[in-house]
């Protein structure tokens, strides 16, 4: 068991094309595992106490001078607070600038979404998956910020050209998030928008939920840069008076 995990309390699988949302408390962990390889998990965060506070990809990137996400990084809201820390990661690079697949792209590449024909193996797309989950909280397309694409690497050359790196996530690829404040998590297991595979991906993703070990003074994420120490200070201020 990772030193960051006190216990795992629940384990499930999200099938390809599946989506889910749930509120995770401060001090919980979520471990994502790519069971068969080649997964992509889209993810967004909101503050359940104020849904206008949401994951902010630009702030996350510029606060940590990074284009990729990996272990040691904090995932920031637009209010200077840390929703979650990436405490462990076997992949080294995850994308947060490409957004979602949409119905048109998916139809063009793999055939249209058709529940009548495909039942729950239908070709769901990331954009519509998020729209469905957002609507459950009174949110809509305007609230859909730039999301994270876990397990997907998009590299950029010197001229700025972007490319999805094929076969980046092997079977067993894993990352661990620790939530640093109460967070509404939206996620889907829909293809990355740059995925050009011949078939619609069918691999499930395992999601484990549990309790986090207390944040140590020498915690890697909190101390990986001065910016993150200040982010944790902002969280402490947000939780002032709370046990």
């Amino acid at each position, binding site marked *: 068991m990772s030193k960051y995990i006190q216990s795992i309390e629940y384990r499930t699988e999200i099938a390809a094309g599946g989506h889910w949302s749930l509120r995770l408390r401060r001090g919980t962990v979520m471990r994502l595992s790519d069971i068969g390889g080649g997964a992509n998990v889209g993810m967004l965060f909101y503050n359940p106490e104020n849904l*206008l506070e949401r994951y*902010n*990809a*630009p*702030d996350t*990137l*510029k*606060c940590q*001078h*990074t*284009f*990729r996400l990996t272990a040691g990084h904090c995932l*920031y809201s*637009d*209010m*200077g*607070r840390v929703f979650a820390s990436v405490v462990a990661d076997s992949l080294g*690079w995850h994308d947060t*600038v*490409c*957004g*979602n697949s*949409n119905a*048109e792209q998916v139809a063009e590449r793999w055939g249209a979404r058709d529940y009548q024909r495909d039942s729950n193996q239908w070709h769901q797309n990331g954009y519509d998956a998020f729209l469905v989950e957002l609507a459950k909280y009174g949110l*809509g*397309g*305007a*609230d*859909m*910020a*730039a*999301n994270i694409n876990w397990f997907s690497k998009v*590299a*950029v*050359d*010197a*001229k*700025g*050209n*972007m*490319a999805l790196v094929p076969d980046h996530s092997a079977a067993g690829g894993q990352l661990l998030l620790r939530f640093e404040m109460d967070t509404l998590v939206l996620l889907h297991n829909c293809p990355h*928008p*740059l995925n050009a595979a011949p078939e619609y991906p069918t691999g499930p993703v395992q999601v484990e939920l549990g309790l986090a070990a207390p944040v140590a003074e020498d915690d890697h994420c909190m101390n990986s840069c001065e*910016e*993150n120490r*200040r*982010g944790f*200070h*902002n969280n402490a201020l947000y939780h002032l008076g709370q046990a």
Partner: protein
Amino acid sequence: MTETLTTSSRAAEAATLRQVVPAGDYYIGLLKAEQVLRILDLEGNQAADTLFYSAENSAERYSATDTIREQGNVYLTTGSSLRSNENRVMLEIVADTCGRHDTLGGACANESNTVRYDLEKRCMHSCRDSWMLAVAEHPEYGITKRDIIHNINFFMNVPVTDSGGLTFEDGISAPGKYVELQAAMDVIVLISNCPQLNNPCNGYNPTPVEVLVWDS
């Protein structure tokens, strides 16, 4: 994207609107389909943090992710189509004498300033506060905080490194450099002329930009 500089033949005297926007201030206004907007960096090295909304439906707005994904490149320059969150083309960059503009770095906010620089810098003026004032003073556009999102930083230079780093470098803009955009639909233009004093995006000296609009 090749960084080819493209000049414009439009004469400033023929513009239907000319407005100087001082640093720390905002511009908000309608740009109708076919109209052309120029943002002019008057004194050089000045970031213009910009958002676009469909005039018909402010929930449809500029989307950095759709824009860079569809063009396969993270930088904006002549030929870039600026796309909405519904993946429709809102505007196209038709001239650019700077060569490269950022859409990864987002805007400065008081809250992110506390993380990036110092907790006690929370009261230094920021782009997001300019936008908050803009939408508060102009309820007629129907834009609220939920619509304030991932923007374009015209004239800002934020290169991505091979190893996946993101660096904020000295601007490649200079006095008189400009970018010109033609609208493909009626859009609301919202610009914060960046007041940031803590990094090189404005050369540590925020200066005015000018907004010009032509009918075509």
